[in-house]
């Protein structure tokens, strides 16, 4: 008997061999000599990752337990392949055109590039495939245990063994699948390695089969006799199970993430499908050829109670054929490793693209440095995902007890991933399918699967209580996991398939019908459903009909002159043509269409080239797609316009504010300059005369007195100026406290006239008409008086008539009391009218005693009081009118 150590050594050697193959294949691919890597044969063989350890070991066990029913697992995929023209071809085309990297990516792309949908599919896929990975662990562990009987000292128990197997597989996958990163998610080395493994498992199974038929049974005739006499020969066909299982395996074949990876993502040429459509069913047929004989002989030869899942190993061992058993072990090992590698690669791509990266990119919203470090994050997140996925598989194995039959576990996964099918194929064939429909179908189907298939698989009392099993969830009889809605007596697998898919499809269709797709979704939907009308690979251009000049003109319009010229020049260089314009070859037209599509959308680009090339007419579908795109672009440009208008407005406001500030600054400078002048002028006299008084000896008493009084007068002038400035500043800042009083207008006027008479009043005659002076006022009477005093003293100073006269007249102006001050002096020049109330606007200052602030102060006061002051030029003289506040009248 081969020792466990020898077996481990053989396995490691085999893995090293696979590594070498993968390595050389990738090197050849990089050097451009990898054409053979992408042959239809390799493609067909790579599809054989459908045949996992479950198929390798489990089919025999399945046959030993349930007779011919195992055939359904091969029948479903065979039907899909044979009927590739209807479904698979479209799936592969769409996957390639839209560069789908996974099932999640495909579904999300169809429904408007929804990341929500992608992450939901990802999570479902991880959970759905977990039992499947557990299955691989179990089969490898079981097969190892055959070579290492439990009674041997130092042997590992099954969970420890499973752990090391899981660990080994994880390392193997990380090394294999994430050494580098390709934009298209293709893995040449991996594909060639799984093709080799496909050959190894087929050869191993055939070898065991041939040994069994010719070595043990003694030929085909005796073999048939033994089959007839064995219990397997007496199988009864359960129709519902047959139909359900065939449909299920067909669905799983299309929806399994790893199948999508090899079938669509790794597909090099669509024509390979055509060959695989008969070659792969042939492979499956060969794989199943000896299943029944091995099962029959196993049941005959081995003691009752032997695990039929291991007949492939135990039959040769029982006959002492260690070499054959080792080959068989390698076959099973190949099945398990190839499945785990591709499945975890596919899942880690999904987890990293749809869960980790969006979260990571969101977390660092700047996202500016999208270069080297992103690659590192991607690789790291893939590796972590691989470890996590295999770890989950191990945990499932651990908690499901590791004892269930292989086929049963495999079917649980199948039902899980089959839930993707309605969203996938509904999206491909039905334009009306919507994102919310897909989401509803997925979630409903998944929930039913978890409840009816996944959780019960742990056995009653593990996750679901026994009470739930027998009495239904929350004690509701119609919620029993294996008899939903009270329909009993159905096989649990059929039950799960029928209910999950029925409810899934119902939710998908119902929600799709009541929700509306957004524009991007509608566009993607049209492109998916009509992929054969739109896709570039399918329809070539009749190159002869296009002229490079026309293409150039159109490209310049869309891409901009520089970019278009660069593109054309590069192509001309590539073709070895002199100058700017390349030949409009088929390849160039397709390249150009892709470039244009990046700017204007695929449909528009297609329609534009169609127009120029002339060969293809633009279909209604094309126009619809163009319209969809245009609507989006229009909406986008409307948003841009709105943004731009907003910016213009903001810029205008800023400019206005800036102008205001500049004007304020100019005003401030002028004001300071004025203040300086007003302060320095009296100070000049004060300084000069005080120096004269100090320095001049023998100055007469008359002069002394005269000069001292000049100094005195100028000092007073300075003080008054400062008072005015402070007063004005307080008024302008609004810090003034109004002292409200009630009084008679006549008294205020009287007070003001009295105040102006105190100094040398000159010859000014003040005439008042006392008619309306009895009006009662309620305002700040002192401030009002200040205004009156200012106006009267201005008249005293500036009225230049021979007999200066001031008429003060109280009148009623449109309900508001006005006080007019009319003098008979020279009217102020018209050009100065606008400046009268401005600071330092000394218009006609001969004696220089005013600082030019008086009228400015008057205006400020009247504004504060709620009134106004205005100037009116008269034919003979000037009139200032004080408009009293309305409420004061």
């Amino acid at each position, binding site marked *: 008997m081969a020792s466990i150590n020898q077996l481990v050594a053989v396995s490691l050697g085999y893995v090293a061999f696979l590594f070498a193959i993968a390595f050389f294949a990738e090197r050849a691919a990089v050097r451009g000599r990898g054409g053979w890597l992408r042959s239809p044969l390799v493609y067909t063989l790579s599809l054989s990752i459908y045949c996992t350890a479950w198929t390798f070991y489990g089919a025999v066990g399945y046959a030993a337990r349930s007779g011919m029913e195992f055939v359904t697992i091969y029948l479903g995929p065979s039907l899909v392949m044979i009927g590739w023209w209807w479904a698979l071809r479209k799936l592969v085309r769409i996957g390639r055109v839209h560069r789908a990297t996974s099932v999640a990516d495909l579904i999300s792309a169809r429904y408007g590039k929804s990341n929500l949908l992608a992450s939901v599919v990802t999570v479902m896929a991880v959970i759905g495939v977990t039992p499947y990975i557990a299955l691989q662990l179990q089969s490898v562990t079981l097969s190892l245990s055959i070579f290492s009987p439990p009674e041997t000292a130092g042997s590992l128990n099954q969970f420890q063994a499973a752990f090391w197997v899981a660990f080994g597989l994880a390392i193997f996958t990380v090394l294999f699948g994430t050494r580098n990163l390709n934009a298209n998610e293709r893995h040449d080395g991996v594909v060639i390695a799984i093709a080799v493994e496909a050959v190894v498992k087929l050869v191993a199974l055939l070898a065991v089969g041939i040994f069994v038929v010719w070595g043990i049974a003694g030929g085909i005739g005796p073999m048939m006799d033994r089959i007839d006499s064995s219990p397997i020969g007496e199988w009864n066909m359960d129709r519902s199970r047959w139909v359900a299982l065939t449909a299920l395996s067909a669905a799983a074949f299309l929806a399994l993430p790893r199948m999508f990876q090899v079938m669509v993502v790794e597909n090099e040429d669509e024509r390979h499908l055509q060959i695989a459509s008969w070659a792969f069913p042939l492979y499956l047929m060969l794989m199943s050829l000896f299943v029944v004989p091995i099962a029959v002989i196993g049941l005959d030869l081995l003691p009752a109670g032997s695990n039929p899942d291991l007949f492939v190993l135990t039959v040769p061992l029982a006959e002492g054929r260690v070499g054959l058993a080792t080959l068989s072990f390698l076959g099973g090992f190949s099945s398990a490793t190839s499945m785990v590698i591709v499945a975890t690669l596919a899942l880690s791509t999904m987890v990293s693209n749809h869960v980790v990266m969006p979260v990571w990119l969101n977390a660092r919203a700047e996202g500016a440095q999208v270069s080297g470090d992103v690659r590192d994050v991607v690789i790291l997140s893939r590796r972590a995902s691989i470890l996590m996925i295999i770890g989950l598989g191990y945990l499932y194995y651990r908690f499901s007890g590791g004892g269930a039959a292989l086929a049963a576990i495999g079917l649980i996964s199948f039902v899980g991933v089959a839930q993707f099918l309605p969203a996938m194929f509904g999206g491909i064939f039905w334009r009306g399918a919507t994102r919310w429909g897909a989401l509803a179908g997925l979630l409903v189907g998944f929930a039913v699967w978890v409840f009816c298939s996944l959780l019960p698989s742990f056995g009653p009392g593990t996750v679901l209580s026994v009470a739930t099993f027998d009495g239904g969830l929350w004690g509701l009889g119609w919620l029993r996991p294996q008899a939903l809605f009270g329909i009993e007596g159905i096989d649990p697998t059929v039950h799960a398939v029928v209910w999950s898919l029925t409810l899934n499809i119902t939710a998908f269709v119902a929600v799709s019908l009541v929700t509306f797709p957004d524009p991007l979704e509608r566009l993607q939907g049209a492109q998916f459903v009509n992929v054969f009308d739109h896709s570039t690979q399918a329809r070539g251009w009749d190159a002869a009909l296009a002229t490079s000049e026309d293409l150039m003109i159109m490209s310049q319009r869309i891409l901009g002159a520089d970019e278009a010229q660069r593109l054309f020049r590069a192509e001309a260089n590539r073709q070895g043509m002199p100058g700017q314009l390349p030949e409009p070859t088929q390849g160039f037209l397709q390249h150009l269409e892709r470039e244009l599509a990046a700017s204007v959308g695929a449909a528009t680009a297609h329609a534009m080239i169609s127009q120029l090339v002339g060969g293809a007419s633009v279909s209604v579908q094309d126009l619809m797609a163009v319209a969809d795109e245009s609507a989006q672009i229009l909406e986008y440009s409307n948003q841009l316009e709105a943004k731009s208008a907003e910016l213009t407005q903001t810029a205008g406001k800023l400019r206005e504010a800036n102008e205001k500030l500049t004007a304020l600054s100019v005003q401030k400078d002028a004001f300071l300059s004025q203040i300086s002048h007003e302060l320095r*002028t009296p100070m*000049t006299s004060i300084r000069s*005369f005080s120096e004269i008084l100090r320095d001049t000896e023998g100055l007469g008493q008359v002069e002394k007195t005269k000069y001292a009084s000049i100094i005195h007068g100028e000092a007073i002038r300075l003080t008054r100026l400062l008072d005015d400035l402070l007063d004005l500043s307080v008024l302008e800042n609004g810090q003034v406290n109004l002292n409200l009083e009630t009084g008679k207008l006549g008294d205020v006027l009287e007070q003001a006239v009295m105040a102006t008479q105190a100094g040398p009043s000159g010859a000014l005659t003040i005439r008042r008409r006392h008619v309306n002076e009895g009006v009662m006022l309620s305002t700040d009477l002192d401030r009002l008086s200040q205004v009156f005093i200012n106006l009267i003293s201005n008249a005293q100073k500036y009225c230049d008539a021979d007999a200066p006269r001031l008429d003060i007249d109280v009148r009623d102006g449109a309900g508001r009391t006005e006080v007019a001050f009319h003098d008979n002096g020279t009217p102020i020049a018209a050009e100065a009218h606008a400046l009268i109330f401005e600071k330092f606007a000394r218009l006609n200052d001969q004696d220089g005693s005013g600082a030019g602030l008086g009228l400015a102060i008057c205006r400020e006061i009247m504004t504060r009081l709620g009134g106004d002051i205005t100037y009116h030029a008269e034919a003979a003289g000037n009139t200032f009118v004080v408009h009293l506040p309305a409420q004061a009248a």
Partner: protein
Amino acid sequence: MGKHVLLVEDEINIIEAIRFLLSREGWQVDTHSDGATALAMIRDMRPDLVVLDYMLPGKSGLDILTELRADPEFTSLPVLMLTARGQSRDREMAEKAGVSRFMTKPFSNTEVMTAVRDLVQLAQ
């Protein structure tokens, strides 16, 4: 030789002070307060020295100076300019226009008289 100064200034008290200071040193002092007619006055009187205020009613001291220097006859006439606006830009403008000496008010009497003596000596 006659020491004849024309003082163009609109502030009565400042006129009074400068007149006092210059007459004491033997100057014949004439005064004028209107910017608009000041230039004609200078041409008419042909003084040995002009003391010119920067801010005048009618026409600014700066404009008067500029026009004065444009006349070849007056390119070297000493002009002492006084200003109460404390801006350095005014000094630059005046120097550009060809002022002989620029002083900011308030001035010290000694300062003014020194400047006057310097200017006259320079002119001789």
